[in-house]
Each structure stands twice: as structure tokens, then as C-alpha cells.
């Protein structure tokens, strides 16, 4: 311990001293996150580009994500709002774990990290639920008309057809709706990578699967890393080491996952 430098040299950049005044592990985690943020930015910018390109046939997200568990009817945006709350909450428990680490309180670190893991699992479950409803779609699906327009149906308003253009909907009901259904060239239910019932472009579902899937995979790997660190904490690894820098590093990753969701929430679900 006698070789440690505690007095800062004249110039921070003259060598023999980390100018960032940070451990190398945290610095590399930061620069990994910068590169990861670039990947997510590219995906979201690609989404924005194609959304502007096909703006008149792009479905309004508030019209697609309307399911909520145990509620009959449409509750637009409430479920993704809840998912955002869950992720922010697990970010808070993570920062409390880091804080407990600063106070060298091993039990408290384990508790908050455990709660963070539970929050991560709840978020992953919510995402699975959302994917299930997105892929399954509505009961009657969408009728593709001969001129390529999409006539959507609504589980809660049977007998009606909804024609969307430029985010304006035209409602058709009664005999005219039956006539349109009979003349339809195709019926699409749910979504896959080739076609979806929500809008006349496969890109909408493709971006949904790619962006939320890529983010969900980050959450999954974050949960796995958190579990590894959680067992290290339980085993007293960091108590013996004397500091909880490792918890700070996984904390950085976990907050980044939350940060990305803030952007996905805005640019995929709200705008």
C-alpha cells in the first residue's frame, strides 16, 4: 500500500495517474455503453427515417398497444407506461444498492440488488406479454382490400371496419362493411416479419421486434449479470475486497438499459 499515489501531479495528463480519476473497469464500462448507445441510436434513427418515409400508412402506436391485463376494452399506452415505471423503479433499487455499497453494508447491498433482479424479471415478463398480444393480434384481423388498403377490425366493436389513412380513420358499418369483407383479397391476423394487421407495411412489426427485442435482450443479460453479482455479494466477495466497485459497474449497465427504454418509450410508443 505504500506505493499509492494520493497527491495529484502537476498535470493530470503527465502520466503515472489516471486523468479520469476512475477505476479502469468503470471507464471501460462507460465507453462500452457509449458504443452501445450508438447501436441503439442507429436503430431508432432508422425507425424514424422509415416512419417519415411511410408516414401516411404508418399505424399510430396509441391504436396498436391498447391491451391491459384483466381489463376489457382499450387502454392505450397504460401498459407501456407501467413497464416504464417498473424499469425506473428497478433503477432506483440499483442505485440504492450502489449507495449501500458506499456505506459498506453487505446485507443492504444484497437486499437492493435482489429487488433489482425481481424488477428485471417483472419487466421481461411484461415484455413477453406484450409480444404475445402483438403477435396474436385481434380476433378478426385486418381485411386487405383489392386496392391495397387495410380495413381493420376491433374486438370490442364487432361488425365495424376501420380504414386508416394519414392517422385519420373512416368507420364503415352494416351492409357496406359486409360487402367490403366479401370483396377483400386477404385476411391478416396478428404480426410476423412479413406482414402485420396494424399497417400496410411490414417495417412497423420488423422495427418493433428488432428494437424492443434488442432492448429486451439487454435487460435479460443485465438480469443474468446482476444475479452473478448478487451471489458474489451473498458470498461476501466484496466485503473481503473492501469495496463494491463491481456493483457500481453492473449498476452503470443497468441504468443504461433503463435509459434506452426511456428513448424507446418516447420514439416507439408515444410519438
Amino acid at each position: 500500500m505504500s506505493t499509492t499515489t494520493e497527491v495529484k501531479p502537476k498535470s493530470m495528463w503527465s502520466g503515472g495517474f489516471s486523468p479520469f480519476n476512475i477505476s479502469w473497469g468503470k471507464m471501460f464500462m462507460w465507453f462500452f455503453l457509449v458504443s452501445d448507445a450508438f447501436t441503439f441510436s442507429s436503430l431508432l434513427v432508422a425507425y424514424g427515417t422509415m416512419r417519415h418515409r411511410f408516414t401516411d400508412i404508418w399505424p399510430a402506436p396509441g391504436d396498436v398497444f391498447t391491451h391491459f391485463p384483466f381489463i376489457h376494452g382499450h387502454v392505450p399506452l397504460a401498459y407501456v407506461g407501467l413497464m416504464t415505471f417498473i424499469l425506473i423503479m428497478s433503477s432506483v433499487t440499483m442505485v440504492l444498492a450502489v449507495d449501500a455499497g458506499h456505506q459498506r453494508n453487505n446485507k443492504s447491498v444484497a437486499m437492493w440488488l435482489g429487488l433489482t433482479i425481481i424488477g428485471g424479471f417483472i419487466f421481461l415478463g411484461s415484455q413477453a406479454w406484450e409480444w404475445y398480444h402483438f403477435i396474436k393480434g385481434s380476433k378478426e384481423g385486418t381485411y386487405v382490400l383489392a386496392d391495397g388498403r387495410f380495413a381493420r377490425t376491433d374486438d370490442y366493436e364487432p361488425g365495424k371496419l376501420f380504414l386508416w389513412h394519414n392517422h385519420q380513420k373512416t368507420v364503415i358499418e352494416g351492409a357496406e362493411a359486409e360487402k367490403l369483407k366479401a370483396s377483400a383479397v386477404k385476411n391478416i391476423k396478428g404480426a410476423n416479419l412479413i406482414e402485420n394487421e396494424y399497417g400496410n407495411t411490414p417495417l412497423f412489426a420488423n422495427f418493433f421486434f428488432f428494437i424492443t427485442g434488442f432492448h429486451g435482450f439487454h435487460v435479460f443479460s443485465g438480469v443474468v449479470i446482476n444475479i452473478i453479482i448478487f451471489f458474489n455479494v451473498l458470498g461476501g466477495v466484496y466485503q473481503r475486497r473492501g469495496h463494491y466497485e463491481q456493483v457500481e459497474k453492473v449498476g452503470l449497465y443497468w441504468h443504461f438499459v433503463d435509459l434506452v427504454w426511456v428513448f424507446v418509450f418516447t420514439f416507439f410508443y408515444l410519438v
Partner: protein
Amino acid sequence: MSNDTHNQPKHGYYTGDIHNQFVEEHYDPKSKKIIWRTFWILLIATIVEVAIAFVPMNKELLQWIFVALTIFKSAYIVGVFMHLGKEEKSLQYSILLPFILIVYLIALCLIEGIYLHKIG
């Protein structure tokens, strides 16, 4: 690598690499209060976002409000939760400045997307 608990000071640690430099932790006795205050700010910003999505108003204005609230929220996550606000200035700049390129990418791609729509 120091494995000796007794030599570790309370609010910092030795990095354990070749410099074995002492790194201060961003310890703050009021940290819990700051964390929960940040939580409420993030929660209220999210509720506002969901609520104004249903308020009839100019679509362009609405989108700019969403973008502003998103940047507002991310500043709190990065600055408080990730402690970037308390890191060295040099580290802050090397993390944040590269994102100028993303602003450039957004401008390029959105202009291109709007143009592609115009020409059909």
C-alpha cells in the same frame, strides 16, 4: 491487488491496477434523499408524457414536448443515477461529445426520410 479490508478507507478504494490510485467514491450523506427525489421527478415526467398524449394539440408541438421530456429524464438518469455529474470534466466530455455525431445522423436521416415520402 489489495485484499486487506483494514487498509481500505471508507469513502473510496485503491484501483488495484499498476497505478493503484486512490479513487474517491461519490459518497453523499444526503444520497438517499437525492435518489428518491430523482425517482419522483422521473415518475412525474413519465405520467405527464402519457397524459399529454391524449391532449388534443398541434402534433408537431406535442412531439417537441416529448423530445424535451425525454432529454430531461435521461439527464437525470445519467447525471444522478450513473453519477456522471460528479465525475471529472474530462470524462464527462469524452462520453457526451461523441453524441454530436448522433444529432448529425438524426438530421441527415430524417431529411432523407421526408424527401423520400415527398417523391413517393
